[in-house]
């Protein structure tokens, strides 16, 4: 614990909260300085995540806060899954921030402070090694997201925000009940210690499983599994686009926790496979619901929100099959589809700029609705890039192919890996059902996106063509570039997710790394 690089693990949490604190000291008018600090922090976070992933070995890295030994002290644990999710957060966060700096960060107060707090909560949830700190990081992340959903104000956002906050407060209460039940029955909240006690006692009591089920409900609400996820599409569609893009990672935190805890606690032993059937059913239902929703979506923001649901459902269902190769493919698909959904939120804003149907319906509230960019000219976006239509159209096509999982992009690689994993062994009916639902959802995603694309690009409009500023172009290019990297180095990516799943299934390795070889 002396070398500088040993403390790399705590940087994803300390950096954003420190920068967020500095934001509060700065006057709201110094937006340039704030944007610079934010961008520097987000870049540093991405570099940290890349460095962590680069040096990751088969043994999870453990960081003891205050050097107290687990299970008494608080630990941060990073394994391949954490590193992967940190990288995803880094890319999405930086891109959304660059997009926001173009103009959205001035649509309301304290955007940068909230944004960095959100990143801190998400990173913390990916790194923490015990359940109660997971709760705390969840709350930090949610509290910041409440502010971001309301960013830019307006009636639609306040309405959606009210429902969003109520649902998530209830989910947090479920979380607390689950955590306390687990503590009451097992006497520990450290994840590794829980797994160890579970294997030593040879299975959990009924009350412990009940506690885990309550916890599971809380996480499934967060990852918007059907029928607990009706809050997601209206909220994400109403949120300001850069906020929506970074919120796409929020539902993936729920998915991450479900994957982590299922494989750690219920991978082997007496409670093996606990809740797997439910996860599979919920996952399939989520994909089906998301597909129906995207078929009925009338604007890109809503379509992107349903795409977020589909990608969460895919991972849940893959986890429910208990097939490791399928789970590995699903994790690969999760990364690509989250990036593409984030890009779609940004594209939706560019396309709807100037012909916003929500603004038209708000006309009756003209006295109360204030355009957040009232006092700035339209020229504020900077010099427009020529051939914007071609760029936006190409980016849209790219996103549609990624989300639908069509060749030649990474979405297809992920789906193909899932199919080949499912088809490797004997095929139970569940595997056939999964393949059928996934294939139908590809078709169901492609059709409405083609329709929306046709309406957006080919149908002549009275108003001018979409305008795209250099910063916004950079944000889009970053997200799509990351997708492209994922496609070109798909083999390396799949090998990484394969090793991730192998590491997740090796509960003994995780326990040994956190608790040390001896007994506490």
């Amino acid at each position, binding site marked *: 614990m002396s070398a500088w690089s040993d403390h790399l693990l705590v940087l994803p949490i300390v950096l954003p909260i420190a920068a967020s604190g500095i934001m509060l000291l700065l006057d709201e008018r110094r937006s340039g300085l704030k944007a610079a600090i934010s961008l520097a922090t987000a870049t540093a976070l991405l570099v940290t995540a890349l460095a962590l992933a680069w040096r990751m070995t088969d043994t999870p890295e453990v960081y003891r806060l205050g050097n107290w030994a687990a299970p008494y002290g608080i630990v941060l644990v990073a394994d391949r899954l954490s590193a992967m999710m940190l990288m995803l957060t880094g890319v999405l966060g930086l891109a959304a921030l660059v997009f926001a700096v173009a103009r959205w960060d001035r649509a309301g107060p304290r955007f940068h402070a909230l944004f960095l707090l959100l990143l801190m909560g998400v990173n913390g949830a990916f790194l923490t090694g015990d359940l*109660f700190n997971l709760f*705390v990081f969840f709350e930090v992340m*949610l*509290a910041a997201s*409440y502010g971001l959903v309301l960013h830019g104000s307006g009636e639609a956002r306040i309405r959606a925000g*009210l429902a969003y906050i109520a649902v998530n407060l209830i989910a947090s*209460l479920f979380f*607390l*009940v689950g955590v306390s039940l687990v503590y*009451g029955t097992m006497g520990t909240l450290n994840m590794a210690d829980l797994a160890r006690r579970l294997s030593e006692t040879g299975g959990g009591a009924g009350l412990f499983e009940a506690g885990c089920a309550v916890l599971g409900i809380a996480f499934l609400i967060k990852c918007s599994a059907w029928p607990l996820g009706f809050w997601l599409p209206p909220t994400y569609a109403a949120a300001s686009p850069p906020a929506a893009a970074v919120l796409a990672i929020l539902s993936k935190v729920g998915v991450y926790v479900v994957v982590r805890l299922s494989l750690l606690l219920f991978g082997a032993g007496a409670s093996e496979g606990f809740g797997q059937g439910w996860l599979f059913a919920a996952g399939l239902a989520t994909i089906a619901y998301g597909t129906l929703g995207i078929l009925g979506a009338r604007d890109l923001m809503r379509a992107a929100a349903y795409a977020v649901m589909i990608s969460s459902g895919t991972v849940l269902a893959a986890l429910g099959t208990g097939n490791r190769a399928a789970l590995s493919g699903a994790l690969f698909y999760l990364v690509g589809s989250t990036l593409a959904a984030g890009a779609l939120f940004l594209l939706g804003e560019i396309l709807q700029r100037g012909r916003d149907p929500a603004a038209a319906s708000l006309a009756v509230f003209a006295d109360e609705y204030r355009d957040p960019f009232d006092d700035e000219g339209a020229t504020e976006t900077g010099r427009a890039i020529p051939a914007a239509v071609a760029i936006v159209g190409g980016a849209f096509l790219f996103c549609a192919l990624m989300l639908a999982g069509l060749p030649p992009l990474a979405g297809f690689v992920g789906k193909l890996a899932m199919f080949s994993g499912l088809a490797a062994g004997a095929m139970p009916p569940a595997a056939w059902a999964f393949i059928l639902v996934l294939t139908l959802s590809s078709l169901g995603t492609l059709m409405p996106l083609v329709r929306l694309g046709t309406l957006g690009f080919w149908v002549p409009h009275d108003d001018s063509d979409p305008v795209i500023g250099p910063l916004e172009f950079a944000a889009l290019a970053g997200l799509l570039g990351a997708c492209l990297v994922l496609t070109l180095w798909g083999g390396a990516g799949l090998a990484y997710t394969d090793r991730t799943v192998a590491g997740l299934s090796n509960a003994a390795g995780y326990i040994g790394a956190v608790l040390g070889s001896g007994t506490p």
Partner: protein
Amino acid sequence: MEIVLSLGIGVFAASGVWLLLRPRTFQVALGLSLLAYAVNLFIFAMGRLKVGAPPVLESGTDAAGIADPVPQALVLTALVISFALTALFLVVLLAARGVTGSDHVDGQEPGQETGQGKPSQREPGR
């Protein structure tokens, strides 16, 4: 004592759920706080019920004679978080009341179409 505590948690939770399902935003806010009380008491109960036992272990004391300090620490954290978020919810509630002119959870009175709010309906009923 167990009966009293479990009855208390039950009454809080039942009232909270009932209020949560009511159509007015302020009732939802109250329901959320009542549910939070129920959950906080429940966390306490998970550390086992003890009367007059300090949560501090001194050298020589039997571990059975002390109260479990962990749930108490958990409750403290959960209390602060739920309190803060309820306050935030109240602010959003007021904003929704101001913008939509209705304190219904849907932002409109039943039977009223979306976006049909006339200026007269946005005045509070006097």
